[in-house]
């Protein structure tokens, strides 16, 4: 039976992040977390393979302390077991560090016949982790995957490339990254949610991965993250007659050069 690893990131829900009007800084103090959207596709694809042809599915995540909150949600989506690396250093990690950490973890928990990632994360969407992970593990990398088959030891994938598609076949194991078109992640059922409570979740300490300080130091340093603010004019027309309001509105729009 094949063994699949699916990688996911526990990200802040962008809907909850607010932009401070004054300096365009981001306020995420009230933001909740979620499993990164494309990673839900990756998880669903792993589970479809598991259901379709029998496979065991492990999941792995690297993040700050908050990743512990993700385990129940993750397991209710179908994977058999989850490994998590919870370390504050994850906040500063870039694709290089993250891929290194996950590769080291996969060497410990593997070997795997297939590793599935989302094409990019919902927060920074750098599309770095899957190809770097492949390079790190010395495996072929297939990106932009919109349909996927496992035929014996072989991975057959259709890649979405602008206005055409490409079918590639590689001898596994391989690392693939999937696009949202690949499937529609299901909503976990009551029994799945209850079953999740009984599935194993295992912590891997970052210190036990044998990575050097250099390997844990990001190569990309983000200097600032700012929101995009569109300033509203907040003009209120309060004439008693509606027609006057309309006239004033048209005049104001004309002055702005929008009509």
């Amino acid at each position, binding site marked *: 039976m094949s063994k699949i690893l699916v990688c996911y990131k526990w990200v802040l829900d962008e809907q909850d992040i*607010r932009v401070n009007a004054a300096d365009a800084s981001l306020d995420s103090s009230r933001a*909740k977390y979620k499993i990164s959207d494309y990673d839900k596709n990756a998880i669903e694809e792993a589970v479809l393979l598991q259901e379709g042809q029998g496979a065991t599915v492990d999941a792995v995540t690297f993040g700050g302390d908050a990743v512990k909150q993700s385990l129940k949600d993750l397991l209710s989506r179908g994977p058999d077991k989850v490994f998590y690396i919870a370390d504050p250093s994850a906040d500063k990690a870039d694709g290089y560090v993250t891929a290194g950490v996950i590769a080291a973890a996969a060497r410990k928990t593997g070997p795997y016949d297939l590793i599935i990632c989302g094409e990019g994360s919902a927060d920074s969407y750098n599309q770095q982790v899957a190809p770097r992970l492949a390079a790190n593990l010395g495996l072929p990398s297939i990106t932009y995957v919109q349909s996927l088959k496992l035929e014996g030891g072989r991975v057959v994938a259709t890649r979405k490339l602008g206005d055409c598609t490409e079918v590639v076949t590689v001898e596994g194991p391989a690392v693939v990254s999937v696009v949202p078109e690949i499937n529609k992640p299901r*909503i*976990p*059922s*009551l*029994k799945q*949610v*209850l079953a999740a*409570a009984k599935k194993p979740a295992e912590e891997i300490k970052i210190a036990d991965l044998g990575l050097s300080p250099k390997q844990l130091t990001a190569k990309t340093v983000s200097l600032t993250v700012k929101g995009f603010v569109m300033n509203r004019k907040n003009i209120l027309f309060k004439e008693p007659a509606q027609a006057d309001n309309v006239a004033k509105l048209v005049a104001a729009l004309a002055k702005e050069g929008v009509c």
Partner: protein
Amino acid sequence: MSADEKFDAIIIGAGPAGAACAYVLAREGKSVLMVERGVTAGSKNVTGGRLYTYAMEMVEPGLYKRAPLQRKVVREQIMMLGTKSAVTVDYADFEFGEDVPQSYTVLRAPFDEWFAAEAEAKGAMVATGILVDELLEENGKIVGIKAGEDEMYADVVIAADGVNSLIGQKTGLRSDITPHLVGVGVKEIIELPDDVIAARFNLSGDEGAARLALGCTEGTSGGMFFYTNKGSVSLGIVFNPEQAAKRGKKIQEILQDLKMHPAIAPLIEGGTTAEYGAHLVPEVGLSGMPKKLYRDGLVMVGDAAGFGINTGVIIRGIDLAIVSGLAAANAVIEADGAAAVGPLYEKQLEKLSLMPSMRLFAGWHNILEMPRMFSEYPALANDAMRFMFTVDGKVPARMDKAMLQIVRRHVTFGQLLADGWRGYRAL
């Protein structure tokens, strides 16, 4: 059916009623499953909100200290709005803030999520993002629930699914809601810095204000509420949908008019709306409750059972939901056999003073349903004030005559008598 598929109790809905019930049952060692349709507990819930602390103390002394509560309410305010005027009564009682403070403002999203997590920490299973579609029935007895394809069994099912309880309807205990049984609540959370809130409402530290206003719904039965939180204020209106529809006013228009009122606008000036929501409120108190709150294998708690008290100056729902959840939990713990739960639940409702309170306030909605409460009387109060405070160099009218005129301008003596009688009988 395997052992994993059978629980001592399944609770439908993780609002305050469900969470309180789950918390107590789990703490007492019962196997409990609480199912919530929202992605997280609280994500679907709308409340003013203020929570009267006694209810949390009944669940467990000191529990409220762990809860993400907002400000302890020491200022109780009533406002009567005229078109461009307002009479405001501000009752500051600092004893309300001492020892165990009498009440706190709350935001439901963090509160409900916290309460569900507390129940989970005590050992309850909490499944969110799942809608319960059906009840399972065998020989006239409720034996479990169905969510999607999944069936789950329990000795007792507790319907804590809120005001528009589908589960209650499915049991036949509740009929479908009708417009006169409920109010519609619309609410916004407006963010403001804490120092601004403190200055505008005359508060210090973690003190809070709760304000209710009449006369803001243009003669439609209903009122406005205003609560100060940490870093935000909640404001909204609760009104009768039937009357509002007759007047052809849209919900948003009524709330927008209110926010533009010259006595309200400065309170929220510069704030940003962070959340907007609408929800039903059980309005008619005791007479809106189902005749029976249980069936073999099922009890109803909280809004699902119609627990709610609205006196015009006090809105109570969350506290009653919590106490009814506690009553159901106590009944399940005491009962030997599922059939005993329902009758024991009714006894608990008496013992915990819930039904006696509902009975005491049974007639109050008659007062609140008088349209004059929301238009003529607030206007009258404002006119009386205007008369008393007007100085324009002319000779004012004599006080007694002027007052009489003001009263006549708004109501006839017949109406006054009728309302007075109706009010007296309602008490």
